[in-house]
């Protein structure tokens, strides 16, 4: 038996969330006294595949020559290599969210998504997951002998270990059902889903022309930028930046909210952040109830000062 983990790469490099998933799989494997096997799809160099060993994988199965975004194709190959797995782990990515449920139905293995803990029991597997857009934590029991777990974003850190892995190449003849025609990458920088720090701003900033200081602060912190829904709707910022219930759900270590009131739908997408800082002129803004740190006052005064202080602290 083994813990099988789906390892996703972006243009040949594994994502941070992949290493987190392998780290989690390794913790789980220790609990079950078994090994971690990683399954990789697409072209990845041996050097990169070997990195999986640093987080606990003892064997890597590398499947090349496929469109990893084709959920049908990937689920079929997955199923063929899952016979020995007792638990299958996915990080939360757009692609894994297409594959994991398919695999669950295909193999009739119970699935829990948004997982935020190691199992509290392993027979049956009992796990805590986020539900109601972060407003509740659900305890789910997997009724099947095996389980599929999809981890909540940024819920687990990286755990390095000394180890190495063997690499096995798999060739496939699966037919594609979905073809990739191209892609548009909106931000070459840091993707919101994986960002450790997010600087976000709302209607309080009054106009697109005022985002310079937001971007400067983000740049300084190595952060991604985000915005509230009305800001994207008015067109001050691209839609990709819209976070909240109907936008992206994010879970960075630090979320800085500038001129955002903190409506329940906004909070639903950001309340998984570990630490939240709010800057708002209105002391009664609901965001102050959810935040860890705050300054009541004018963003146009505070943000430049904050940038200055961070620069000082960095020197």
């Amino acid at each position, binding site marked *: 038996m083994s813990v099988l983990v789906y390892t996703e790469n972006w243009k040949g490099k594994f994502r941070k969330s992949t290493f987190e998933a392998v780290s989690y799989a390794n913790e789980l494997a220790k609990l079950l006294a078994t090994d971690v096997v990683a399954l990789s799809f697409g072209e990845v160099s041996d050097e990169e595949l070997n990195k999986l060993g640093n987080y606990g994988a003892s064997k890597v199965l590398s499947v090349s020559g496929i469109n990893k975004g084709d959920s049908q194709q990937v689920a079929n190959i997955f199923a063929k290599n899952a016979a020995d797995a007792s638990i299958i782990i996915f990080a939360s990515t757009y692609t894994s969210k*297409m594959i994991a449920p398919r695999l669950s139905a295909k193999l009739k293995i119970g699935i829990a998504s948004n997982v935020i803990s190691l199992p509290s029991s392993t027979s049956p597997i009992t796990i805590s997951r986020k539900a109601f857009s972060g407003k509740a934590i659900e305890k789910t029991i997997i009724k099947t002998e095996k389980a599929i777990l999809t981890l909540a974003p940024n819920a687990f850190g990286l755990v390095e270990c000394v180890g190495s892995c063997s690499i096995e190449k798999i060739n496939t003849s699966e037919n594609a059902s979905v073809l990739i025609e191209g892609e548009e990458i909106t931000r070459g920088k840091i993707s919101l889903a994986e960002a450790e720090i997010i600087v976000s701003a709302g209607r309080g900033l009054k106009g697109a022309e005022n985002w310079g200081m937001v971007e400067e602060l983000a740049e300084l912190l190595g952060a991604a930028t985000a915005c509230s829904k009305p800001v994207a709707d008015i067109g001050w910022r691209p839609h990709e930046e819209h976070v909240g219930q109907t936008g992206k759900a994010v879970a960075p270590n630090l979320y800085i909210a500038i001129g955002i009131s903190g409506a329940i739908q906004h909070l639903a997408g950001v309340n998984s952040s570990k630490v939240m800082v709010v800057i708002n002129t209105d002391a009664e803004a609901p965001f102050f109830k959810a935040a860890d740190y705050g300054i009541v006052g004018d963003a146009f005064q505070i943000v430049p000062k904050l940038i200055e202080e961070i620069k000082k602290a960095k020197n």
Partner: protein
Amino acid sequence: MNIVVCISSVPDTTSKINFTENGSKFDSSGIQFVINPYDEFGLTKAMMLKEKAGGNVRVITVGDALVEPVMRKALAIGADSAIRINANPTDSYFTANEIAIYLKENPADLIIAGRESIDYNSGAVGGMIAEILNLPFVNACNGLEIDGNSAKLCREIEGGKENLSASLPLVIGGQKGLVEESDLRIPNMRGIMQARSKPLMVIEPSSDENLTSSESFEKPAEKSACKLVEIGNEAELVRLLQEEAKVI
């Protein structure tokens, strides 16, 4: 074109979430139920596709009689008919399996689910339906054009979009971008009147199979009060973030 839109009935986004019976059951008292926002984008897209190319739009749900007002709303928005599978869903597999069983008997060219439901957030039902029916599936779909039997799709990926092509029949998990917010339709009086006489078929579930069970719910720990820093003392905020929170 024959389109089926899967509708999940969920608490309105402003709802306060509570649980009863020792945290084992969602407390629906005082809750206003609405069409899952992701499904609303899908339903609107279905209406637009039908207006362009003709065909028929069915909405389907797995739920008890309490979800009927939400299905009537979907009919008022413009769906031609509604199907309710009369059962309280016990997990995603149960829901997907029931919908797939219906679809095997009553096929569709395009099956639209939402990227996820905003209550259980499983993000699983669409993919499972696709698997059971052995169809292609594109999730987080934020663009769809159909020409005859072929579909051009766009899906969200980390940091961008991916353009795809596939042929029908096909399952998607929809989200904003499929249509824009400004395209969403509010039922008008005529639609509401017409909805009353549109067919809402109730069928009994065919199986009770599920793979998981929900044991209990709890609310996340309350955050401790927000620490306020005086304006002008931004240096203190930086210190707190470095030394206390250790996040920068």
